[in-house]
């Protein structure tokens, strides 16, 4: 599949603006965003006006727009990094590609700029293979295939729900890890896309992600909010929680989640040591989440994504609610999210 085969009309690029000045960001992505429709969602807590250069087909949503669509009380669901979820909500497209506003295109080992948008769409358009591990990774890419011993009945794969990209320069490490190794930068370009096997849990990062909105849109839940959640990734877990839900639901419904290419180049933002000073409750919440997801079984009757989210929210409330109020809030947010999704998307 090549650039010529991507249908740009099927894609929305959703950018959560936590920085007011998007000039450098959009200019550097210009060649790869060209021809696509963009949705820029401004963090409702950001006071300054957004600065968006000319030449893009873009719809911008700010706090007032959010409140018109979801009501004033619900706009808090979309603050900080979660503002992008509003973009997912109002999009009408099949695929969403979402990149943090502190990332620019990376270069591959040959020095070519990586077209992350095209790579994500290629990942989403090709089947995933979660039921059996292929040791040559993505069997559908040029020059690779299924290896000896790969069951033939599984070679047509399953629909791909999400494509999780990676990061050169500043990898998505947590605050303690980055604070310990302040000079550490990720220089390893691993030239592979692979499907994360069914039942395997992973930390999905929101920094560089794409998904099939038509397939799993409601499963991208803006739910888990850390007390004192900040405006740097080290001070959030919303994407990791969202990813755990998304993976679990994808596994349940028989879809696949891919990881690997494309890379983006991630820049300096914030200070890991500063972030460490905050009480890092994210660690505790993850520890509690893992055994929960590990043992969770969604009912066989949950066949639609929305139903899966509701069932998941119920289980979160029952099993994790007493551990931490953040979980109860997450469960409530997940239910509210499905309601909003249904109301916004049925009136379309």
């Amino acid at each position: 599949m090549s650039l010529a085969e991507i249908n740009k009309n099927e894609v929305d690029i959703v950018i959560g603006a936590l920085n007011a000045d998007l000039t450098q960001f959009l200019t550097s992505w210009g060649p790869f965003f060209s021809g696509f429709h963009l949705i820029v969602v401004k963090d409702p807590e950001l006071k300054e006006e957004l600065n968006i250069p000319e030449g893009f087909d873009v719809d911008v949503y700010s706090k007032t727009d959010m409140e018109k669509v979801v009501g004033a009380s619900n706009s808090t669901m979309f603050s900080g990094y979660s503002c992008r979820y509003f973009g997912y909500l109002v999009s009408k497209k099949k695929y969403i590609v979402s990149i943090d506003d502190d990332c620019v295109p990376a270069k591959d080992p040959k020095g070519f700029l990586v077209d992350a948008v095209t790579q994500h769409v290629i990942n989403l358009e090709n089947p995933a293979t979660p039921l059996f591990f292929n040791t040559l990774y993505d069997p559908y890419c040029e020059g690779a295939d299924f290896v000896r011993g790969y069951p033939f009945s599984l070679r047509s794969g399953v629909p791909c729900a999400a494509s999780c990209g990676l990061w050169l320069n500043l990898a998505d490490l947590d605050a303690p890890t980055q604070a310990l190794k302040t000079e550490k930068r990720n220089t390893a370009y691993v030239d592979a896309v692979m499907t994360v096997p069914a039942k395997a849990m992973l930390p999905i990062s929101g920094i560089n992600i794409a998904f099939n909105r038509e397939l799993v849109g409601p499963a991208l839940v803006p739910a888990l909010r850390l007390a004192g959640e900040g405006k740097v990734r080290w001070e959030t877990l919303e994407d990791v929680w969202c990813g755990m839900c998304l993976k679990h639901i994808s596994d349940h419904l028989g879809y696949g989640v891919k990881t690997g290419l494309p890379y983006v180049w991630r820049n300096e933002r914030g200070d890991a040591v500063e972030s460490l000073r905050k009480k890092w409750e994210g660690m505790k919440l993850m520890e509690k989440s893992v055994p929960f997801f590990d043992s969770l079984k969604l009912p066989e009757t949950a066949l639609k994504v929305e139903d899966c989210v509701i069932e998941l929210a119920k289980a979160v409330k029952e099993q994790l609610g007493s551990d931490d109020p953040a979980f109860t809030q997450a469960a409530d947010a997940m239910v509210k999210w499905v309601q909003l999704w249904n109301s916004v998307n049925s009136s379309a």
Partner: protein
Amino acid sequence: MAQLYSSVKPTPMLKDELDIVIPTIRNLDFLEMWRPFFEQYHLIIVQDGDPSKVINIPVGFDYELYNRNDINRILGPKASCISFKDSACRCFGYMVSKKKYIYTIDDDCFVAKDPTGKEINALEQHIKNLLSPSTPHFFNTLYDPYRDGADFVRGYPFSMREGAITAVSHGLWLNIPDYDAPTQLVKPLEKNSRKFDLPLRLPILYVDAVMTIPKGTLFPMCGMNLAFDRELIGPAMYFGLMGDGQPIGRYDDMWAGWCVKVICDHMGWGVKTGLPYIWHSKASNPFVNLKKEYNGIFWQEEAIPFFQSVTLPKECTSVQQCYLELAKLVREKLGKVDPYFITLATGMVTWIEAWEELNSAEGTEAEAPNGKNE
């Protein structure tokens, strides 16, 4: 923390703790290329086919060699579990080894080069893989977090960052990939590379990663470039009944891989895949391969759901116990698919009996009259 496993310190050679097991039917000329990397290790050569043929081993290697006559002599009636006219016979080498680690490699595999042109020391990479932990319980999106330059990503639970012990290191191949016969027939010219120099990808498919295959996930284990902790998982590395007199071939390593993964998952151990690459030079005849694989292609459709649904009872606390339990289940459940599986289940039990005999404290020492120390 992952940094404890940094290779700032040189990787230990483990030359007294690792045996290299090589099955062969022709010659061992390929060892010349591996000399700088293998010369300090002890080799166990398992000669398949006609035992009267003399296999030439390049001068300077320390080895023991076993042909079919030796296998029959050492195992007696239990030799029935060791395949004949198939590289599956290599597992005899695992059984007679006295070392902690095994590296096994095919005699048509050569030293590969990485994208910078540097020769890859495959054995050293396997050792690094085995000596550092695995992460089977939670997938790390930056792959092996214990490699230099990598680490755990945000959201990776701290309680899991010590990882699990690594039982197996599964390496890959450049040039001729490990495809089955139907794929070989459809893609005769393809090497493990990209035909077109797309701006998004490198021309040679060298994937610079090692990763742990998650718990609960099966994979096709290839025996061409494989290392494992023999003391840990050795008894499960039976390569089955293939070749002469058997209705199937080229599924020896696959069978071992499914058994090994189920048992590693049960025991909480990790299986890694990825680096190192070796250069696979010879594409075997796809028509010959098709005849060998034919039954396997159908039987794997039954075998895989079987392995995916197996649960080993928690009373199985040793690998041998797990393996005998598996043999019982193979007989019960897969015996219905074809009587071959009943023969195979018997072979599995015989293998464990032979393993115990050769590896218990009072067990007979395997005599290899064809060994040499230089």
